[in-house]
């Protein structure tokens, strides 16, 4: 006889009863046996699934780290939609999308301290600003890009990145991390630093950003982070190759001593 209808083979694979003629055929026909057998295996796995068997999307920071790794720290927009099967991934809430490169308010002078002694108010958000634009906005931005990977956040042409590094946590700050990049536009270099602190860890003091040589003998104070990020003008005379270490240190709130407190939170070496 001809093979049974494909629909019937599927039912047989599920264990439903069928007429004897069809069953006999399946038993003796190689092609039908194989078909039923493979469908049975699918059903077998399907039947044993439990509530733990579902796909979970990873936190957006995983993509950030991958993008950072493969692009030597150049800032990359997030994929717009990494969806859970049951519900969309909701990134940590960020009310306003911020142009890449950190906060728009105030690059600080190269090695000078801010004139007022009061530290910049700590940002209520403990996440770096470039982390997550609203999901829809990110998707729209990604779709709108013609080519190239740098997000043209503030409508300016993307600056050249002349150096970049991950910032890794010092031992007692496990979980902290960040990135530092040096951009160059119109002859001006800017050090851009963003950081992330582990959940539950507060910053009691000011986070100062330093550039130094490998032996920490020549340390240049670039400025203080505004919250967990900052942009600092790099003076023309600074040789990046001679000061490749970017260090973020925690300075007590009213510390009169301008020297490095010796409490480094994260550090990295610029790849130039």
């Amino acid at each position, binding site marked *: 006889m001809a093979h049974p209808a*494909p*629909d*019937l*083979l*599927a*039912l047989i*694979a*599920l264990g*439903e*009863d069928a007429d004897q003629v069809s069953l006999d055929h399946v038993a003796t026909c190689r092609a039908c046996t*194989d078909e039923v*057998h*493979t*469908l049975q*295996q*699918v*059903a077998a*796995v*399907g*039947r*044993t*699934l439990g509530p*733990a*068997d*579902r*796909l*979970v*999307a*990873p*936190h957006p*920071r*995983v*993509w950030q*780290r*991958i*993008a950072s*790794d*493969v*692009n030597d720290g150049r800032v*990359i927009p997030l*994929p717009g*939609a*990494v*969806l*859970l*099967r*049951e519900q969309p991934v909701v990134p940590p809430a960020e009310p306003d999308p911020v142009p890449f490169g950190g906060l728009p308010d105030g690059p600080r002078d190269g090695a000078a301290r801010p004139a007022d002694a009061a530290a910049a108010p700590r940002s209520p958000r403990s996440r770096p600003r470039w982390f997550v634009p609203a999901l829809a906005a990110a998707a729209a931005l*990604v779709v709108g890009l013609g080519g190239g*990977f740098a997000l043209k956040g503030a409508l300016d042409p993307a600056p050249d990145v002349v150096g970049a590094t991950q910032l890794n946590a010092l031992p007692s700050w496990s979980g902290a991390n960040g990135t530092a990049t040096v951009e160059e536009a119109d002859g001006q270099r800017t050090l851009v630093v963003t950081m992330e602190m582990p959940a539950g860890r507060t910053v009691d003091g000011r986070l100062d950003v330093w550039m130094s040589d490998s032996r920490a003998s020549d340390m240049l104070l670039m400025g203080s982070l505004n919250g967990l990020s900052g942009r600092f003008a790099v003076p023309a005379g600074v040789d990046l190759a001679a000061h490749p270490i970017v260090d973020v240190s925690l300075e007590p709130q009213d510390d009169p001593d301008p020297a490095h407190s010796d409490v480094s939170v994260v550090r990295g070496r610029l790849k130039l």
Partner: protein
Amino acid sequence: MTAAPNDEERDALVAAFLAGDERALEQVYRRYSSLVYSVCLRSLGEVTEAEDVTQKVFVAAWDKRHNYKPERASLSAWLMGITRNKIVDAHQGRARQRRIADQVASNYDTPREPLDVAERLIVADEIARLDEMPQKVLRLAFYEDLTHMQIAERLQLPPGTVKSHIRRSLIKIRRRLEESGDGPSGA
């Protein structure tokens, strides 16, 4: 019809990936990161480690993309191969650092663990991607053990429609397993 990638789209993605187009990496991540991450999470049991291994998998896939031969395996199967290796590395790293209690460690002894987990997650994912009616039909067949006639009555559908949904859904899931390298025929 759910928006499953068709063959042309997949081939284009692979070509772009191999050519070093970073947007292709982004697409690959979008498509497969949940599967990779979920397998890692199930095998390693810890979010931080699962995130870490997931990161390693995609960075390795990018760095070693010249090793990927499309004619030999699907991208999914290749990624799962990398995932398995990285999970094994992570387990070995753990054993060295003695970070987990012995009774937990013994659960992770079998090297087949990531393979089984991937198979289950792929099937779960494919079922979840089915359109609403075929999905309902399949769930009734799997989890309430109803015959197609009983399903037809429960859902007020023609029996022929129910049979057709069952067959198509099983075949879809089977195809996905095969292309992931965990196919029933290859198991």
